[in-house]
């Protein structure tokens, strides 16, 4: 993550510290969730042994359901974390965004200049064509209108 490498070179120390703290929190959440999933899955596999008293089996079945639900919950929590990361990328990816904006600005400025030059050229060509056409038209014998 960019924030990790840029912790020391952030705009302000407070913002850099906050970013580092946020990164640490997110890593902790990830680890917690992953550990949760692994742990619950291990327990699920461990309960696969069939016991003699059926009471224990039904007890274990309830436990299995509970652990499965916990696993799914942990996975959902991980997904939310990913969403948060995406949102953070949207709103904090200033470097790439600024680069892109500057690039686009340059492109548009160049396009504006080209358009201006093209318009000027069109104007000049139109003036030249007009001059030529006028001289041809007024030199021709067709221009005198019919007497009304």
């Amino acid at each position, binding site marked *: 993550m960019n924030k990790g490498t840029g912790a020391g070179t952030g705009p302000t120390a407070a913002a850099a510290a906050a970013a580092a703290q946020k990164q640490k929190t997110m890593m902790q959440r990830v680890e917690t969730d992953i550990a949760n999933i692994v742990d619950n899955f291990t327990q*699920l596999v461990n309960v*696969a042994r*069939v*016991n*003699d008293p*059926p009471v224990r*089996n*039904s007890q*274990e*079945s309830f436990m*299995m*359901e509970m652990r*499965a639900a916990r*696993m*799914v919950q942990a*996975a*959902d929590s991980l*997904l939310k974390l*990913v*969403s948060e990361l*995406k*949102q953070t*990328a*949207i*709103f904090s990816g200033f470097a790439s*965004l600024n680069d*892109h904006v500057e690039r*686009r600005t340059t492109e548009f400025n160049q396009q*504006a*200049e080209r358009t*201006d*030059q093209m*318009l*000027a050229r069109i*104007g000049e060509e*139109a*003036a030249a064509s*007009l*001059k030529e056409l*006028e*001289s041809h038209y*007024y*030199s021709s014998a067709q*221009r*005198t*209108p019919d007497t009304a």
Partner: protein
Amino acid sequence: MDGNLEISLDKLPIKRLESIEENGVERYPSDSSYDEKRVSLIRRIDFAWALEDDEERERKKRQKKSSKDASATWQWQSMVENLQLAHQELSVIIDLINTVDANDAVTVAGMTRPKPLPNEVLSDLAVSAATKLQCYRQLGKYFKQSAKALEEQIAREARFYGALIRLQQNWKVKRQRLAAAASSSEGFIIDLFDNSLYDSAAMCRPSSLSTIRVDHDSAGMLAINLPPNSCRSLHFGFLGVHSADIPKELGKIRTRGSVEQCTREREKESMSDDEYIKETHTLLREVHQSIFDDQVFEMLNREAFNQSIGVNVTGIRENYLQLSIGQGNTLFISLVPSGKGDDQDAANTQDSESAIVPLDSFDNVKLEGKHGTSKRKWGFPNRTSCEIYLQQIVHEHAFVKAKDKPNLSGTRVSGQSGKDGPGLLGHFCLSLAHRIFSNRVLVELENVVCRVPYLHLMTHPTWHSQTSSWTIFLKVPQSILHAESQSLKSDFQNMKDAVKSQFRTKVVVNDDRINVEGDGAPNVVSLFKRSSENISSVNKYECDLADLPVIILLQGDTVSLVAHVNPEDIKGGIAWWLVMEDGSPDDWKLQMDMYDGASEYRKFLGHLTLDVLYSTLMDLVSLCGGGRNH
């Protein structure tokens, strides 16, 4: 317990001698305690009937099996019978337990499970294993469902955030956390308000469209929902020429509005994400343009309230501004919703302009009736170009100036401040007024030039919105020059060099003022003038439109047909001369020179017949101003 009732008889409760030993000691059975008595009584409960029933059942089953007939046995019959037997046994045991429970003297000493048979052990194990397996299978299904749901959620989010990131390349995406808490969506908005305007204090009121909420649609993709007819566009026209209704070409140019949101939903499945994002970009751009048009109109409204040069407001309504630009021309600027045109016509009909066919181009000659010829004569500029011009000058003044950009080329009109000169609106009105007036001047000049041979009209583009310039020049053919120079043989060479063959008159129109200046009279009279120093130069001369043809052609000279009566002439009594006078008070000079032969001020035409005389006179009249008799 049907059938024969069996009765068991108990012995009398007297002590009976059990045994006698050899020494005569009598042994009696020991007294059983109360508990033992009860237990013995309980033990005497006879379960034989149950055993007999079992044996009977076995027999019957064997009989049924042996005598297999066509009647199909119900597959659950044995299970039902087993269950019934079990029920009976259980009821007996329950009775027993109740009896034991009711009798305080007897308590259950202990219960031992009967040793299970091997098949029972295995069947119990199998049942447990099957139960566990079933449990795991259910877990597996649950995991699969959850995985599928999570994958779908991932896909939806990927689409949404991918689209949002791509939109963010071009637009400002913000997040409202309070809104996120209130609604189910994440609270993203797109901010279209440009706060880098030149006069931010003047344009501090953001449009209601400035912030657009980003929603999720049914498929999880981002969707932008706009209220219908929220986008408005600038609409320009000349009163009496253009209709104030929304022209149909506007509907073609902006065919996409929020009205098409419902159709977009249906087409979304067939559209790829790229195309959808492009459409969203286009929609946002339309909204952006609509906001810009709102700002333009607001700026124009504000300027209209300030009295400035060139601005003459003749009507104001909501989203409608009417201005008079002089010479009977009026224009209107309005804001109209840029949705489909059919619903808007009824709402936006103006009082008198709705029936007039819109005139879009200067050369539109398709109008019928007298309006056609009059509109053609007084042609108005193209309304679309006027709209673009208006937007361009506002943009350059309000936006570009804020960013301190220099004018890139002379084609751009520099925005003027409202303090010392006309404001933007004034400048616009003056430019349009000039354009209309210069079109009329051009029509007049063309009329003049068309009727005179050897007369050329040249247009000089000034690239200035309030100045137009033309040059009328006459190029005398060499044949005529040679014809004149031959009459003076001694000075032939000099004359040829000194005769001027081109005469120019420059016509410059500034706003509505016409300036005419020239270096010679570009008319037939100039044929008399052979040396440049004798040519009278016309200085700068201001005139109005009505006198323009006269000024162009005559420029202070008068032409006369003079008849000289000579009774002694052989051919005829009357000889005709063409005489040019420059209006100078020394007319006596002409009279003195008349009998001296041809001079540069007069030309001998000879004896003319009546027909020739008439045609010459008519030619001169037609040269002198296109129908005007002077």
